[in-house]
Structures are given as structure tokens and as C-alpha cells.
């Protein structure tokens, strides 16, 4: 592509049908992909912007987000080198992705894929792990079947439709029936320019009895000028499939981040997910597990730590649509500075989903007088033979705890660090992956020290 094209694109701000067409043209996409994008664009245009009267957006102030000043995509002109930050241990997201042992790696920078790799042993078993452009080109059938059709349909909502029109990268994982891959597949999404948008997509399809471990890490330096990202994550688990999923959001402080994740679980499928929210100026995550098959199980863990003027919003749904389904959710967050967080979670048990066992817990530790946490747990139960438990707490570090540690010679600041780490410890202990545990420990220590 010519330098002129890049300049033209750099000048293009705001989202438009032209931008969708231009993106598709630059990517050299076949007609069906282009049509799919344009159809989504039409949906985006038809849907109203979320209002604060909508329950899900009630505590979310979008007024400062200036969509019309953003470039819809960027970064086609870069050469294909791996970002230096991948080797920079201070970059939390990079640390997770840069682990030595991988079953595969996909690195996306802005709208461009820099690297895709898959371990030969995995590829030999028919596993696919690649960037989404390649997946659209080489695995059209699987994509047509799963991409924004069932888990997160392209008309799911305003931001999801925009994503379907402008998706630019991300990863596709496909594990055939009966195949188990123990090492993690890692996808890394990085943004390098202020004023730009990143739409990354994660699609994981696990066939019957397949097992895999997928890590998504989002990161960027903190830049001047607004950044925008709208990610969609889709997990499709066939019967008896098992997916462990870890997502680390460590965007720069200029970024407005939206993320919608839906997991579909068939009979006896198991999802173990962990969402770690550390970065961004504004971060809204919508996370749901649909337990569609009987005996399916979702463990949903979350850790968030806000400082400065960060705003985090986590909405979770535990959707029990079949009998004998289990969900176990634990989200824990700490807030310092004048950070704010909203957690809102719904356990919904459909009619007929007897013997549901659902647990939901959200705990918040508020570390300063100007920080604030809100927690809104909800139950909606349409069956009579179920067990549903939920709880929420918002607390402060207790002076008695600090004093006890100080009385043993531990300085107050270190005592505070120990207590905060201790607050997160039970969640950390639930993730049986040493590397992730180590990453979480240092991420928390870094946050406490900010």
C-alpha cells in the first residue's frame, strides 16, 4: 500500500461507512467479509447510543468519550517488528504474554498482526491458532459458523455492532475434538498511537472433549489524547470441552476500553476464567457465561485494582439455562487515589434449570477516602430447586491489622502492602498456574506502590 493511503487514513477521524469500506479495501478482503462489515455498520447506525437510563449504563458516564475525534483504525504502515515492550518486564500485559512456554503466540499492534506462531505439535493435531485475518482467509467455514453469530451476535449492542463493522485483528483458536493442549496460547494486543481505535477479537472454539488454555493481554503506553478500544471475546465450548482463559487489561491511562465477552457452554463443559483489570482511564467489561448444557460449570474470577482517576465497570452474568449447572464467581477489587469502580452481577436461573448451584461474591477494598466502590448483586430465579448465594462487601484496611503488623516491626507502608496482597490472595490461590500467580503478585505490588 502506498504512503499516500496511510496519510489519508491518518487524517480520517470519526466512524463512518467510508471508514468501514476503506478498512476492508486496505485489508484486501473478499466481498462476503466486506458485506458482513457493512451490514454491521447499518446495525450500528440504527442502534441508539447507550443512555444512562439503561440499567447497564446507569453508573457509566460516557460524556467525555469523543468518538468523532478518533481515527477508526491505524498502523498499517508499520514494519513488522515485535514491540520492544514485549521484552520490557515493567509492562504487565507484556509479562504475561512473554512467557517462554507457549503453544502459540499472536501479536497484534494497532490494526496489524506482527507475529503468529503455533507449536508444531499442536498444529499437527489440527489445532489452529492464528490472527483473525488469516482465519477469515483460510478457515472461512469455521469463521462463518462462529464469528459473531452465536456467542456475541453482531447486533448484540451498539459497541458490538461497531466492532463487527471495524474489527481489525485478534486471534482465532480452534481445538479439534479430543485434543488437549496444556501450554497456553497467548494473544497480545498493543496500541501505539493516541487518538486511534483498536478493535481486537478473540474467538475460541473448542470441540467435544478438547482442552486449552488461552491468555489475552491488552496493553499500551499512556499517551496524550484519547484512545479507544472495543474488544469482543467469544468462547464456544462443545460438550465436555475445558477452557482456561486469562485476560489482562493494562491499557494506557488515555484509553477508553470496552470489552464484551460471552462464553457458551454445552453439556459437561468447563470454563475457568480470570479477568485482570489494571489499566485504562475508563474500562467497561461485560462478561457472561451461558450454561446451556447440563452439568456445565463456569468458574469466573476477577481482580481489579484502580488508582488515580481510573473508572472500572464490571458487569457479569451467570446464566443458568440447563439443569445441574454450576457457576462460581469471585471478583475482588482494590481502589486507591480517586479511582471508582462499579460491579454489577446477575445470577439468572431459567425456568427448568433445576439443581442449579450458583455462587457470586464481590469484595472491594477501598484504600483512600476519595476512592469509591459500588457493588450491585442481583438474582433472578425461575426454578424452585436451586441453590444461589451471593454477597458483596466494601471495606477499608483495618487499623487493627496495620497495628498488629507494625507491632512486629513491619513498617506501615509494607504492612499495607501485605494486607492488600492478602486481600487478593484467596483469588490468586485459585489459579493453579504459577506463572500467572507470580504475575498477579507483582502487578498488585506495583499498584500498591504507585
Amino acid at each position, binding site marked *: 500500500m502506498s504512503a499516500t493511503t496511510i496519510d489519508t487514513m491518518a487524517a480520517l477521524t470519526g466512524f463512518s461507512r467510508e471508514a468501514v469500506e476503506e478498512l476492508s479495501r486496505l485489508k484486501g478482503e473478499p466481498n462476503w467479509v466486506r458485506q458482513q462489515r457493512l451490514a454491521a455498520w447499518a446495525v450500528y447506525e440504527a442502534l441508539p447510543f447507550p443512555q444512562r437510563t439503561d440499567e447497564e449504563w446507569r453508573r457509566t458516564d460516557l460524556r467525555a468519550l469523543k468518538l468523532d475525534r478518533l481515527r477508526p483504525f491505524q498502523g498499517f504502515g508499520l514494519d513488522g517488528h515485535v514491540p520492544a515492550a514485549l521484552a520490557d518486564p515493567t509492562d504487565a500485559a507484556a509479562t504475561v504474554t512473554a512467557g517462554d512456554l507457549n503453544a502459540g503466540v499472536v501479536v497484534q499492534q494497532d490494526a496489524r498482526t506482527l507475529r503468529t506462531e503455533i507449536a508444531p505439535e499442536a498444529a499437527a493435531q489440527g489445532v489452529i491458532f492464528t490472527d483473525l485475518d488469516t482465519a477469515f482467509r483460510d478457515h472461512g467455514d469455521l469463521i462463518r459458523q462462529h464469528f459473531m453469530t452465536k456467542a456475541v451476535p453482531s447486533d448484540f449492542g451498539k459497541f458490538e455492532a461497531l466492532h463487527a463493522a471495524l474489527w481489525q485483528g485478534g486471534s482465532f483458536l480452534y481445538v479439534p475434538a479430543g485434543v488437549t493442549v496444556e501450554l497456553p496460547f497467548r494473544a497480545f494486543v498493543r496500541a501505539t498511537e493516541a487518538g486511534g481505535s483498536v478493535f481486537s477479537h478473540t474467538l475460541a472454539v473448542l470441540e467435544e472433549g478438547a482442552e486449552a488454555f488461552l491468555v489475552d493481554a491488552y496493553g499500551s503506553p499512556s499517551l496524550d489524547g484519547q484512545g479507544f478500544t472495543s474488544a469482543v471475546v467469544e468462547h464456544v465450548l462443545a460438550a465436555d470441552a475445558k477452557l482456561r482463559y486469562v485476560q489482562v487489561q493494562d491499557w494506557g491511562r488515555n484509553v477508553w476500553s470496552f470489552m464484551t465477552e460471552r462464553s457458551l457452554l454445552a453439556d459437561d463443559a468447563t470454563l475457568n476464567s480470570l479477568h485482570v483489570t489494571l489499566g485504562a482511564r475508563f474500562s467497561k467489561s461485560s462478561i457472561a457465561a451461558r450454561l446451556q448444557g447440563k452439568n456445565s460449570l463456569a468458574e469466573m474470577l476477577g481482580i481489579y485494582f484502580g488508582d488515580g482517576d481510573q473508572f472500572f465497570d464490571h458487569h457479569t452474568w451467570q446464566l443458568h439455562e440447563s439443569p445441574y449447572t454450576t457457576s462460581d464467581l469471585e471478583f475482588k477489587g482494590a481502589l486507591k487515589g480517586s479511582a471508582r469502580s462499579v460491579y454489577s452481577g446477575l445470577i439468572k436461573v431459567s425456568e427448568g434449570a433445576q439443581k442449579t448451584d450458583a455462587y457470586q461474591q464481590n469484595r472491594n477494598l477501598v484504600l483512600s477516602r476519595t476512592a469509591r466502590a459500588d457493588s450491585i448483586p442481583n438474582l433472578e430465579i425461575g426454578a424452585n430447586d436451586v441453590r444461589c448465594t451471593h454477597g458483596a462487601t466494601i471495606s477499608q484496611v483495618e*487499623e*487493627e*491489622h496495620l*497495628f*498488629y*503488623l*507494625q*507491632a*512486629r*516491626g*513491619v*513498617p*506501615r507502608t*509494607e*504492612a499495607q502492602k*501485605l*494486607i492488600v*496482597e*492478602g*486481600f*487478593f*490472595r*484467596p483469588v490468586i490461590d485459585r489459579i493453579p498456574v504459577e506463572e500467572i500467580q507470580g504475575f498477579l503478585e507483582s502487578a498488585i505490588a506495583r499498584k500498591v506502590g504507585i
Partner: protein
Amino acid sequence: MRERRETMSETSTGIGTSNGHGATGTPMFQIENLHASIEDKEILKGVDLTIGQGEVHALMGPNGSGKSTLAYVIAGHPSYEVTEGSVKFFGEDILEWSPEERAQKGLFLAFQYPTVIPGVSMANFLRMAVTNVRNARAEAEVAAGGEAKPMTPREFRRLMKEKMAMLKMDDAFATRYLNEGFSGGEKKRAEILQMALLEPRMAVLDETDSGLDIDALKVVSEGVNALAGPGMGVLLITHYQRLLNFIKPQHVHIMMAGRVVQSGGPELAHELEAKGYEGLRAQVGAAV
């Protein structure tokens, strides 16, 4: 009222003068006319107490008389305000020091009600405490021309194992969260484990005997006795003579209504056991 107080402070100072002096002539630990309040309510109303190097003193007194308050004030609890008086440790006024500084300089308090801290493992916490206290001590030694010897993680683990074995504590305690789900007696044992690891020069043990079964009492007492001696002075707060059969104090003090009202030798504890506080109450005044 004033007259009575003078008599009493004379008694306790008397002990200090006769037995309480360290090699330098300064008493190791000296509380003078200590007044302290919580939420504007005065609890300590002029405490005088002197402990010489390596001495064991027992502090007894009815419920609510201010024993734990005294212990907290010595440890530097932020809820208490000292309004008058002084507490000196090797001649230095400790009241300006932060709680951690007091611990680093060799003061230790075994809590009557140890705090549960979720998510913080015993081993992690102990390593942090030992490292901080040892580093501070090493710095002081270097400043005094000595040699600093930092402890390796391996040495720490060995030391912890050894002390846990001495207190007959199961290894599993090391990985458990601090005091979480510990039984009453286990908590008390864990307090003494901390003391054994931190090797203080002065330990205040607040009802460490309560909640201990008779075997545990023996084990814990042995732990204390192993450290008590020239290197460590002890202030033993207790309600029962029983403990004093195991850890033998040279001096016994009785606290009432925020003051030390009587001091004597070990026989005082026996007397109390036989007669209770009633007689003493009458003796020191109806106000008490």
C-alpha cells in the same frame, strides 16, 4: 489522694532502685506517672513501674483495671493518647517512636486477643517481621562499629522450623493465614513463636496463659523461659498464679483503676489467689 499516690510510686520506684538497674546504672524499662486516654476517657491514671535488665515481673489486677491498655500504650497503639508521664527503654523515651520502631528496637507485645489477618500467610508475615527487625538491629550494630549479618531465606526457614518444633507447632501453621481459624490456644502459641523469632529485649505478655491447656501452658512457658534471662526482660500480665509456677517472676504488681497500687515479691500472687481483690480494694480506697 495525692498522698496515697506518693506512697505507691515510692513502692514501685523502690523496686526499680534496688533491682532494676542495668549494667550502666539506667533501668532497662521505666514507666513514670503514665496517664493515657482513649476517646477522651482516662484509663491509665499515673502508672509507675520499673523493670531491670533480664527481670521477670508479673502484673495482675481485676478486669478492666487497665493492664491491656498499658500493654497497648507500650506497643504504641494509635487509639491511645498519652497525656502525661514517660516510658523509657534503656533510657530512651519510646513514646515518640512508631510501633514498628519500638518493635525494631526490641520491644514485643504478645496480644491478649491476637488479630486475624486474612490472606497473609504466617511464613510470609514472619519473614517480613524478622527481616525488618533484624535489618534494623544490624544497622544499629554497624553504627556501633559491629558487624551486620543478614539472614538468608534458607536460614530463616530453618530458624522458623526450629522454633515451631520447640513450641510443638505443626509445620502446616506456616502456610496458614495469620491466626485465621486458629484456636484460642493456637493463637497464643503463635504469639510466642513470633517472640522467639524476633528475640526482643523486653516482652510484654498479655494473658498468654488464657486459653492454653495444661500441656500447652508448659510448652509455652518453656518457650518463654528459654528466652527470659539476661537478654530479655518480661512483663507477664495474668490473672492466675498457675502461670507463675512455670514462669517465675521476681516481682509482682497489682493494678487497679489505672494505677499500680501494690508491688511485692512472688508471695503477693499467692495472697491474691487466696483472698481476691476485695481486701486490697478496701485498703487502697473506695474509689477503686
